[in-house]
């Protein structure tokens, strides 16, 4: 960790300030939530004490992170490509939606597989879809029949 050259003021790290603000907000949420708790303990700590302790720590760390950000003390970051990240998150959202609406395990995980694979640069969506469907069907059968763990069933699973 470099202590920085005091003669040359470094740029303020905006992301670092956002992180500090988020930590402070989290501390506030903790305190707000703990106010609804009743201390029923006769002696010692009630359930509201620990959240306040953790919130205090978070608030101090928010200050620490803020100072680091102002001084530009954060490690250098390489550029990041947002497109693949968004693609994977879309895949996760699809998975959650399909599970939520009863579409079943096979369709849900296949959607995630295809979007992730596309995020990592594959363009053969049709081939990947077939691979995904076959793989998740095999996983479903292995879990359902061999391990007797229940995975959510949808229209495809009922055909098996």
């Amino acid at each position, binding site marked *: 960790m470099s*202590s920085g050259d005091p003669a040359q003021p470094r740029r303020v790290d905006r992301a670092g300030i956002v*992180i500090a603000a988020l*930590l402070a907000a*989290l501390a506030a*949420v*903790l305190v707000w*939530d*703990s106010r609804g*708790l*009743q201390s*029923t*303990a006769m*002696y*010692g*700590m009630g*359930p509201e004490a*620990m959240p306040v302790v*953790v919130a205090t*720590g*978070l608030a101090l*760390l928010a200050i*620490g*992170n803020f100072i680091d950000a102002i001084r530009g003390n*954060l490690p250098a*970051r*390489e550029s*990041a*490509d947002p497109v*693949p*990240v968004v*693609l*994977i*998150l879309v895949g*996760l959202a699809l*998975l*959650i939606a399909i*599970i*939520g609406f009863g579409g079943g*395990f096979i369709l*849900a*995980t296949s959607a*995630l*597989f*295809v979007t*992730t*694979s*596309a*995020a*990592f*640069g*594959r363009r053969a969506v049709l081939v*990947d879809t077939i*691979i*995904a469907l076959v*793989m998740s069907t095999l996983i479903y059968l292995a*879990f359902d029949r061999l*391990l007797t*763990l229940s*995975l*959510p069933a949808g229209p495809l699973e009922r055909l098996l």
Partner: protein
Amino acid sequence: MIDTFAALAHGMAVAVQPMNLLYALIGVFLGTAVGVLPGIGPALTVALLLPVTYKLDPGGSLIMFAGIYYGGMYGGSTTAILINTPGESASMATALEGNKMAKAGRGGPALATSAIGSFVAGTIATIGLAFLAPWLVDFAVRFGPEDYFALMCVAFVTVSATFGDSPIRGLTSLFIGLTLGLVGIDKLTGQARLAFGVPELLDGVEVTTLAVGLFAVGEALYVASRRHHTEEKLEPVRGSLWMTKEDWKRSWKPWLRGTMFGFPIGALPAGGAEIPTFLSYSTEKRLTKHPEEFGKGAIEGVAGPEAANNASAAGTLVPLLTLGLPTSATAAMMLAGFQQYGLNPGPLLFAERPDLVWGLIASLFIANCMLLVLNLPLVGLWVRLLAIPQPWLYAGILVFATMGTIAAKPSVVELSMLAGFGVLGFLMRRFDFPIAPVVVGLILGPIAESQLRRALAISLGDPMTLLQSPISATLLGVALIALLAPFVLKGLGRFKANED
């Protein structure tokens, strides 16, 4: 001493039962296979497989977890040597020299010295574990709740602040974990904390959901976001797999020295295998008769750190089994494995379930032998796993990662939490916050809180109880020193820099 041998013999009798041998074999096999995959370390391997095993019998599946743990360590070094992407920070030192050896066509001996070194170190360290554990258990039975609380404070500080790049970022990670640990129903009063009226949150944050989100989803997002930076290249294993006489001569001392670094540092609640591996690396660099080879593929630089890595893995089992104290992400996942069966590692477990504990320790010896066989002749099989194209690899990892959650709790809330922790893991990697303290905070936070509250209830609310017990007072002092040391040292460093 005699007791230890008797207990170990009894444990061996448990471990060689055919079913348990099978569990150990499945464990080392899965551990190696998943550990070989780039970007997956032993912690994630255990996290991925936890939900799948909760219907199995506890003894067998703990033996399987131990196999996964050791197997993941072996597998990780294969990846480090052949494609220079260490799955975990403990393999970083191995990657330094090992990948150079592979590029120079000496990948075979590099893999061999790391496998045999891991075996030697793992065996010696497991013997250490078997003899140190009963002694520590005798000591730990005297611990009161305030002593446990103080011990956890030490673990919190060492895991997050003392050895990382930045104590502030490490502590931030820890406090995020502690916050997550608060979610759910308070066990003493039955009141809900941080649940915001969501029924799924009343049970608290599931450790596996957090770990899989942070490690698997976070890693996939991170690798995807910076795919345009680096192209990893798989080095084929060329030439002989076997070590020459010269290789043996240059390897055996680094193995033993690495073990000497790894086991004690792993056994102390000092967090992680990075320190011993880098200590071993720099020691070998200083002691070698071939200094010109360092940086170009010196076998000592693979043998030492690999031994240190495995010895510290066995070392972290000492505080985990005797005190219930996880000091690495993987140990935290092992603890979650115990908790899944309602078992709490600690002195009581040694007294109540000696068959389970000693069976587990004995099975570590067996797992080590299995791994030596699995890794030397079968290395070609594992190398083939590395040839899976990256898109399918990460797509598959994500399918497996979500599958665990879907099997355990197929709810929209739980899956959204998994995705949310994935984003958190991505951001933490991007902004260089360490991940392990979050997992340790989530697991240890609630335990530390209940120990503290118990201690205060016994002392009728007098906080001085923490300082009146000599054990607790000493440990709190250690925690304070460990917390302040990095700040003081940094200040000294700045002072020196100004002098120049």
